[in-house]
């Protein structure tokens, strides 16, 4: 019943102004007719709903494969790693969660957090050290003193939307660290996997 009313209203909303030639005339009639302000607003909200529904349907239709893959579990954790374009950075390799996790558990790498200090203080991978890209020049000498150039580094930041880990790894590479992995899933993926995190706001 409700559905029928909705369909009827929908139809009238869409059909009334469909023809551009009659649009002006009909809209003037509606605007200055006896349609109240709230009815007008209701109409607009209805239109908004229809627009959103149509858009969502298109999105679902276009991306149904990706979504089904995820639902069936045939798609592993997110997103193919963007490749590093410049050849001189060939030693900087992207790394997935599994690889990074193994390094972590066997204590085979130093985890470097590329985010700003407040973000690091709030939450970071346990045992990771902070080296914000923005303060690299200032903090780099100290970092260099503490960690030998042959140290294997895993650099991370806030996940796929974040560029800092790559910037930082390039800078580290240029200072002489040549065994660098970029953990592109970053802290969000790490947290989601339930791996150890520490900080004031875990």
């Amino acid at each position, binding site marked *: 019943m409700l559905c029928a009313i909705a369909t009827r209203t929908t139809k009238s909303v869409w059909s009334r102004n469909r023809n551009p030639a009659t649009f002006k005339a009909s809209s003037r009639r509606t605007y200055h007719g006896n349609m109240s302000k709230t009815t007008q607003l209701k109409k607009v909200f209805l*239109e908004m709903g229809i*627009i959103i529904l149509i858009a969502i349907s298109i999105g679902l239709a276009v991306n149904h494969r990706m*979504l089904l893959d995820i639902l069936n579990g045939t798609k592993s954790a997110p997103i193919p790693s963007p490749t590093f374009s410049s050849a001189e950075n060939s030693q900087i390799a992207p790394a997935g969660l599994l690889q990074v996790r193994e390094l972590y558990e066997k204590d085979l790498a130093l985890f470097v957090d590329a985010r700003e200090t407040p973000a690091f203080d709030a939450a970071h991978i346990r045992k990771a050290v902070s080296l914000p890209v923005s303060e690299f020049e200032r903090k780099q000498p100290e970092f260099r003193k503490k960690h030998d150039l042959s140290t294997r580094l895993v650099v991370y930041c806030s996940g796929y939307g974040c560029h800092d880990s790559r910037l930082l790894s390039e800078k580290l590479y240029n200072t002489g660290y040549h065994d660098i992995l970029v953990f592109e899933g970053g802290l969000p993926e790490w947290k989601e996997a339930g791996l150890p995190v520490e900080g004031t706001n875990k």
Partner: protein
Amino acid sequence: MKNSHKRILMILLRMGLGIVFVYASFWKIRNPEAFAGSVAAYDVLPFFLNHLVAATFPWIEATCGILLITGYRVKAAAGIVAALNIIFIVLLASTVVRGLDIDCGCFRQGGAKTPAWQVILRDFIFLAMAVSIFNYQRGAMFSRK
């Protein structure tokens, strides 16, 4: 302001806003998985929902953008755009409060990071544009003789 000037201003506003939204949706539609990563970085939704949002949301942006540009159902499109910008602003503010240091993922995915306050400011401008388009359309409905 003279009515005709205002009309032209509003056309420019809705064109501008429409182009921004179509442009923004373009990058997300081209690479929904990268956009899912950007959504995941906000750390508000579980894995599958991030992808569901990534699959559908850009199309809402694109549809509204196209409606704004073409001038068809402008008021409704402007209303949606305003609502979206309010959501963006709330989400971005929450990343600042929670101390997340992420890129907004607004346009090109995985590019250099734009500071959150700058994005919030930008979204307020878009919100103002959308609201004035929304209001102007109603103005035309009710006050013009």
